[in-house]
């Protein structure tokens, strides 16, 4: 569960200032699962989520080692951490993927490899999880990004800053994303009252 946002900032500053590893471990245990959940939903693949999560935490450690963490009045520690992760994901996977697609498009149309085939171990035991997972993967990246952030409790205004889009755009992406997820559930026999 998320703790007091100010306490998170204090913990990070304590780690940065004194090297108190217990402060970092508290942050890690507090934010590890939500970050992985967000990345899992964003990336659609467990191994990618884990890789990006690891890189984000290592970047955070590097920030602390350099003494470069400056808590913001308007952004929580969680927002800071998620932004590190999202930026890494965008640089490492989305932009790289877009560049690869562009190169392949130039050579062979329609010969793109499907990068989203991995089964989801985390949702295997959940009744509607696999349906949602599949529907989530079908969402455009922008909608998936917003709904993934929203799903781990990031508020709309913060998402707006993180994805660098107006608030109305974020609301719209979330609305359409959830509508598509509802439709997916309906197709699978989940009824609305």
């Amino acid at each position, binding site marked *: 569960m998320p703790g007091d946002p100010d306490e998170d900032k204090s913990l990070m500053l304590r*780690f*940065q*200032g*004194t*090297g*108190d*590893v217990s402060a*970092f*471990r508290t942050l*890690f245990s507090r934010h*590890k*699962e939500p*970050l*992985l*959940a967000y*990345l*899992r*939903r964003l990336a659609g693949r*467990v191994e990618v*989520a*884990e890789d990006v*999560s*690891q890189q984000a*935490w*290592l970047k955070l*450690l*590097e920030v*602390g*080692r350099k003494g470069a963490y400056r808590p913001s009045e308007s952004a929580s520690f969680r927002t800071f951490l998620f932004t590190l992760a999202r930026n890494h994901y965008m640089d490492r996977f989305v932009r790289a993927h877009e560049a690869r697609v562009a190169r392949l498009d130039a050579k062979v149309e329609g010969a793109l490899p499907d990068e989203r085939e991995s089964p*989801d*171990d*985390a*949702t295997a035991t*959940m*009744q*509607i*999880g696999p349906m*949602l*997972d599949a529907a*989530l993967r079908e969402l455009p990246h922008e909608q998936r990004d917003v*709904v*993934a952030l*929203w*799903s781990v409790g990031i508020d709309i205004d913060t998402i707006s800053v993180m994805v660098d889009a107006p608030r109305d755009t974020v609301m719209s992406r979330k609305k359409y994303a*959830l509508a598509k*997820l*509802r439709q997916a*559930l309906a197709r699978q*026999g*989940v*009824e*609305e*009252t």
Partner: protein
Amino acid sequence: MTIPDPSAEDEAIRAALPRGRASEAHDTAILAAADRVGAQIRARRRLRGWLAPLAVAASLVLVSVWMLFPNRSTVLPDDTLRGNGPALEISPANGSILARAPAKLEWSAVAGASTYEVMLRDAQGTVLGTLSASGSTQVALTLPAIHFVPGTYFWVVRARGPALDTQLGPFSFRIDAGT
């Protein structure tokens, strides 16, 4: 499965979305890195703790050496004199002996000064004239405003600026023959 209402439906979707599950390797790698970085930060902190006292000790040693072996040399170039303010170059040179009265008095600029006042006295201390110069570093000494006779003369320059008010001199020159 039945979803009761739209908001609850959103929450149901939120709850049912896939979650990540960190592998042991994921956690181990991060926590091991945290231990390393924490140790580096603590080491750096200990070093900083030593540096401050070391700097103080080094300063004390330098001050002690300076007090034991002070540099008492105050040799100045001929035309560089120490008045009440900073050193400067002047013309005529301090203590110079002249055959005739100087046409003008000159001094080097003083940082921060915008105006100068020059006061000239004779050997008896009589003020012969007070001359002003705005921005310039020289004043002309015109006759008959000042009548020079053989003897010794003293002059001071008062430099003024927005954050400055300092006196340079007194300086002297001697005239051997009246002009």
